[in-house]
């Protein structure tokens, strides 16, 4: 009954979405207030209906209702409750339901928080949201219905893929989707502006916070996914350039570019047309990612060809939305008026530089991900494009970008002084140089690239803080006055500094672990010791244990530092009987920002010894800590925006614009 209720709510949500995607549009053309308001009602109502549908599916999972095909295929009565709930989106149908739920959530947010939006813009935005929602609800109902019943109902379910039975599944997909799908708002705003044929700084002021929200979630989602893969897959890798990762990384790169170009548009009303295009491209990459992950085309082009229903459906959605939006762009973009002028060396110029490199990086990841698929479809030839390709192309693209980061905030709008900015960065350059020299000294001059990487990381870290320091002008104004000035700076200045600081931290982690990680693979018997990262690892012994829905072999290790035991760690190999699948649970010991990563291999034939792999991962956690700083920077910046967006009277805002334009 509950399941049917959910199914019904899903169908009803489709009807509401169809209304939401048409009537407000008609209203916006004819200036009919009541028709336009249907957009808000539809967006809110659609969200409520999808929440009902989602809750119904969750209820079926929680009660282990195996008469529902989706629950039978992906759950088990012995599964811990957390994984029963997270299992709702640990499969194709359920994850698509989460996708549309979040899409509707963002639509509802626009409806609720968009009171100050011009009525026609709001109606158009919600209508475009309605189109996306309609398309994906049709997709779910026709090819991926999570509410399909099974008769007779089986006694037991087939369990969830054991790799997914982890807290990571509770956090990673929702965060990722909040990011991915959140870019739909920027897309809808862009298309609405094109329909309207009008775009101004107010538009950018609206789009930027939405883009920031999506970006913050996507940043956290990707970082969380990376850490999950790191500890769960048992080989200690944190980024694999896997097509599935690339699918989320491309929208992140484009979204980061969008964030920066929207800044130019808001402050200087330049780059309008480019920002619109970037908004369309960013969400297009999200859609492409959904297609890549959900159509099965990645597993094999042939699997896709034999069961093409889902893939072709998403491909059609993809072509309709990307093609339609780009056609609209080609048709209307020339009508949009270009804005402020700027010299190549200026804040705007620096942000264009940022956009140039980020879009090129996104294009590189895109071609690397799609090239093997296209080649196989076109010529039947099979090639692989893996990590070495991306390291060789993406890496060099990042270097000039990262070198330029500290300059950006120090350059003036319109016309900047590179020399003056450079002089302010003397301190950062000194720190970077010191890091390089120390790096060379400690490695005896053998690791030139690592030393250069250190320099780059510290250049970013010190450079990002320079802007705050300069704006507080501690030297000129003295410490007390400087402090007062510092605390009086707008939040967005702190946001920028934090995000760029986080980037430096991440780079430091990446460089250190890539250059100085050590690995030991050895066979150990209980009582054996092995050296790793300056610590001694003592193998205490192995034992068997039973979990709720698995059995595991656990190896216990004592970590000693100069003979003193400092920690104990457990590594395990689990076996899940329902799926007949093994997983590895690495033992990870964190000391400061570094980690000792211990993973169990196969036992020897006589069962007396076991293969143990130990990695010393210096500063590895900085990779994710840095991402958290980036997300924090985005959030702080968002707080600033809210204050300004929430500024009560419009006339005041316009007055400020005039002042800003005149400055």
């Amino acid at each position: 009954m509950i399941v049917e209720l959910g199914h019904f709510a899903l169908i009803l949500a489709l009807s509401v979405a169809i209304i939401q995607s048409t009537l407000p549009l008609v209203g916006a053309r004819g200036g009919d207030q009541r028709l336009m308001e249907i957009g808000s009602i539809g967006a809110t109502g659609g969200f409520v209906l999808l929440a009902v549908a989602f809750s119904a599916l969750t209820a079926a999972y929680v009660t282990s209702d195996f008469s529902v095909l989706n629950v039978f295929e992906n759950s088990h009565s012995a599964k811990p409750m957390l994984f029963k709930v997270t299992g709702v989106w640990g499969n194709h149908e359920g994850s698509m339901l989460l996708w549309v739920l979040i899409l509707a959530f963002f639509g509802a947010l626009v409806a609720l928080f968009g009171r100050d939006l011009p009525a026609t813009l709001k109606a158009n935005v919600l209508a475009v949201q309605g189109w996306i929602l309609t398309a994906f609800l049709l997709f779910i109902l026709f090819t991926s219905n999570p509410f399909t019943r099974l008769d007779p109902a089986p006694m037991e379910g087939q369990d969830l893929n054991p790799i997914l039975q982890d807290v990571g599944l509770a956090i990673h997909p929702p965060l990722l989707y909040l990011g991915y799908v959140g870019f739909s708002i920027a897309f809808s705003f862009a298309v609405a502006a094109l329909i309207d044929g009008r775009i101004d700084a107010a538009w950018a002021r609206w789009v930027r916070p939405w883009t920031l929200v999506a970006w913050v979630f996507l940043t956290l989602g990707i970082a969380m996914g990376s850490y999950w893969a790191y500890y769960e897959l048992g080989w200690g890798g944190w980024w694999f350039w896997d097509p599935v990762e690339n699918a989320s990384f491309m929208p992140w790169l484009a979204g980061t570019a969008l964030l920066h170009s929207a800044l130019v548009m808001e402050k200087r009303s330049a780059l309008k047309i480019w920002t619109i295009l970037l908004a369309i491209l960013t969400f297009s990459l999200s859609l492409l990612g959904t297609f890549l992950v959900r159509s099965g085309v990645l597993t094999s082009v042939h699997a896709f060809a034999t069961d093409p229903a889902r893939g072709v459906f998403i491909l059609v959605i993809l072509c309709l939305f990307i093609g339609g939006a780009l056609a609209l762009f080609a048709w209307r973009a020339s009508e949009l008026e270009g804005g402020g002028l700027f010299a190549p060396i200026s804040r705007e110029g620096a942000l264009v530089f940022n956009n140039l490199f980020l879009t090129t990086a996104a294009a590189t990841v895109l071609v690397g991900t799609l090239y093997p698929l296209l080649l196989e479809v076109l010529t039947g030839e099979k090639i692989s494009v893996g990590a070495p390709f991306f390291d060789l192309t993406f890496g060099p693209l990042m270097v000039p970008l990262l070198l330029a980061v500290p300059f950006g905030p120090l350059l003036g709008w319109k016309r900047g002084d590179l020399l003056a900015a450079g002089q302010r960065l003397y301190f950062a350059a000194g720190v970077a140089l010191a890091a390089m020299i120390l790096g060379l000294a400690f490695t005896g001059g053998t690791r030139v690239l690592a030393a250069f990487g250190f320099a780059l990381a510290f250049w970013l870290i010190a450079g990002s803080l320079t802007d705050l320091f300069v704006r507080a002008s501690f030297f000129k104004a003295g410490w007390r006055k400087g402090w007062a000035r510092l605390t009086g700076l707008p939040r967005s200045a702190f946001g920028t500094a934090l995000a760029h600081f986080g980037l430096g931290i991440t780079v430091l982690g990446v460089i250190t672990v890539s250059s100085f990680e050590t690995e030991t693979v050895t066979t150990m018997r209980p009582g054996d010791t092995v050296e790793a990262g300056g610590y001694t690892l003592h193998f205490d012994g192995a034992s068997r244990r039973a979990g709720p829905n698995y059995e595991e072999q656990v190896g216990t290790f004592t970590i000693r530092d100069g003979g003193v035991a400092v920690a104990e760690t457990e590594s395990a190999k689990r076996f899940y009987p329902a799926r007949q699948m093994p997983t590895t649970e690495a033992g990870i010991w964190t000391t400061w920002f570094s980690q000792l990563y211990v993973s169990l291999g196969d036992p020897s034939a006589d069962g007396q010894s076991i293969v143990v792999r130990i990695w010393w991962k210096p500063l590895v956690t900085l990779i994710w800590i840095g991402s958290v700083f980036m997300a924090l920077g985005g959030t702080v910046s968002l707080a600033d925006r809210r204050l300004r967006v929430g500024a009560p009277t419009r006339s005041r805002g316009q007055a400020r614009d005039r002042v800003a334009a005149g400055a």
Partner: protein
Amino acid sequence: MGFLSRLALVLGVCAALFAALPAGSLISSAHAVNPDEVLDDPALEARARELSAGLRCLVCQNQSIDDSNADLAKDLRVLVRERLVAGDTNDEVIDYLVSRYGEFVLLQPRFDWANLALWATPIIVLIAGAVFALVSVASRRKAKGPAALSPEEEAKIAALVDER
């Protein structure tokens, strides 16, 4: 043009730095090598590891044979080491594997004409984007520079100045 030449300089320096970068060294690869596979000669073993990181485990999704626990990956790891012990150069080992398994086995596609579209895309996008950005900034500045005053405006200003 100062901006462009400085950009070129930065790019040149970076290209030079990265030319020295051996494939796969920027991103670490973790390993599934077993103790019994490891060669006694550390130099040969290091070469084997370097090669393995660039070879695909054919039955896996996007994993190198160095990362994978699959049986086939183990077979390939052993094969690579056998060829190295037999005295093959790195290129000979790669050629041998490609002749057996096709280019699919290479995680880094060959740098040749057939893969031109793949390798050239980043650099073409970057150059085209840079040219486009510079041209549009420059042309807009020219086009939208302050217009010269009309004769009437000149007259008005002259009148105002005279009044003083």
